[in-house]
């Protein structure tokens, strides 16, 4: 099966630079998966196969690495990936209420994606921001010291952004 994916020349340059920073080729696997993630938007089987071919590593090994970690953006994740920290410090300050509120607003539970493909919701383990509990990560950004009103506002804002993107 021919793989039609390829890195842009800019990304390829970054990949070549990575190879100069480590004594082995395999060591650039994690950073290369990040490059693939941002180039292709997600890491599904074709993307993993592409990285395997590029780095001359068995695809099964790449699959094993990707699935060992929780933070790679896997295939089928919504445009806005909402991850609510649910570990102890956040739980003590109301993370369950944050999850319930998002479920109420979006109609999806943890582990689900809205049918339109815009939002995914998950409960995740400690994000290292316990002093600003409860908190969540949406794509790259931390949203901290959340009240339920903050949650409503964030969802409104993301919805507006998503609609703007679709119309524009």
């Amino acid at each position, binding site marked *: 099966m021919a793989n039609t994916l390829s890195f842009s020349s800019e990304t390829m340059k970054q990949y070549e630079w990575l190879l100069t920073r480590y004594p082995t080729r395999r060591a650039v696997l*994690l950073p290369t998966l990040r490059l693939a993630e941002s180039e292709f938007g997600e890491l599904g089987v074709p993307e993993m196969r592409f990285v395997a071919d590029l780095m001359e590593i068995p695809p099964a090994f790449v699959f094993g690495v990707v699935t060992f970690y929780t933070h790679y953006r896997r295939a089928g994740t919504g445009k806005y990936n909402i991850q609510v920290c649910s570990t*102890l410090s956040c739980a003590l300050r109301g993370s369950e209420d944050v999850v319930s509120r998002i479920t109420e607003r979006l109609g999806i539970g943890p582990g689900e994606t809205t049918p339109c493909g815009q939002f995914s919701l998950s409960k995740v383990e400690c994000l*290292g921001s316990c*002093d600003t509990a409860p908190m969540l990560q949406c794509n790259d950004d931390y949203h901290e010291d959340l009240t339920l009103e903050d949650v409503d506002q964030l969802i409104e804002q993301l919805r507006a952004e998503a609609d703007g993107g679709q119309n524009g």
Partner: protein
Amino acid sequence: MTFRKIFTQHIAEADCHTLEFYQRNGGYKQAREALNGQDPDDLIEQVKAANLRGRGGAGFPTGVKWSFVPKSTDKPKYLVVNADESEPGTFKDRVIMEKNPHLLLEGILICCKAVAIETAYIYIRGEFVFATRRLQQAIDEAYQAGIFGNDSLGSGLKIDVTLHRGAGAYICGEETGMLTSLEGDRGQPKLKPPFPAIEGAFGCPTVVNNVETLANLPYILEIGAEAYRAIGPEKCPGPKLFCISGHVENPGTFELPMGIPLRTLIDDHAGGVWKGRKLKAVIPGGSSAHVLTADECGVAMDIESLAAAGTMLGSAGIIVMDETTCMVDALVNIMRFYHHESCGQCTPCREGTGWLEKIVHRIAHGEGRMEDLDLVLEVCDRMVGKTICALADAAAFPAQSIVTKFQDDFVAAIQNGGSPAWKRRHPSAVGGAASHG
């Protein structure tokens, strides 16, 4: 001597993370002197004399760790900075990386000189996107200014640093798991020995140090080992970042001398227990530490004092729980974490964390039996010290101490059909426990 903050003194200022700001405040002076002329063995001796102990959790003396790295070797040597910061309740290294990144970079240079290392990697957890940007910005600035590279700080020494982003796995905070991950694999720990100092990253001698540990080095060189050792207790000296979260009025990171009483930290610095409530329990050193009851919180926050109190300083991640907290629910949460994060290669951990979660979960959900309390302790006995890394111990310690010290909460949940929080969420199920007998 009055206490001077070294990590956080400037963090409220707008440009505190920039090279210009750092250098204007004396930054890179110590590294410049160390790289240009100081004897590596003298540097190691100074760090030993200062009795700097690792700030990542294990508390091993940093200078002693460095001295384990073989001096004559054909292999390259590496420094891998542990910036994975994944112990629940811990958020201190993040402050350094976001607000004072050049302090870490200066510490890296000093370590590299002392141990004759040319290549450093900073392994940062994948979720810390902002800290990654800040740190990369600082690294770029430092390269442009000739601080790193083939002629680091004009010394003729080659020192390179590369920021390496993790991808979400608690186990990568364990040093051998982190090295395996750095090499491009699943982050599964390895048996020690060989220790990383002999055979670490890429099979070569490697120093693994925590962010905060390295950030102490410029200050040690500045004031000297003797003055440093005078800060806090002699056996565990120095300035320290304490993280407080949970049920306090003012959660945050507080920089104070080692050895400050836990109760003082909570009451005077974190604003006390929130909502005027009473204290019930405190985890003093990240969720892997044995829990303390309110009566035990007079303890001093240093490695020796907390060990004597039957717990540990760990990562200094303090989680405070007020009188309304059900310790069964707290333990369910902690056990879910360790079950999720177990890498799965050792049976006692893979199976043990799963069983602990299952047993505590059923107690919380009104399906517990009195004999479950002994069962929890029995499962813990079969985990502690029986695995490649300390994750199994980290799961067992809170289970042992919470079940033992807060037995009343567990007995109440078993006898009354579940934990109070669970009963509130499932009113119709209350009283259903009898049918499971």
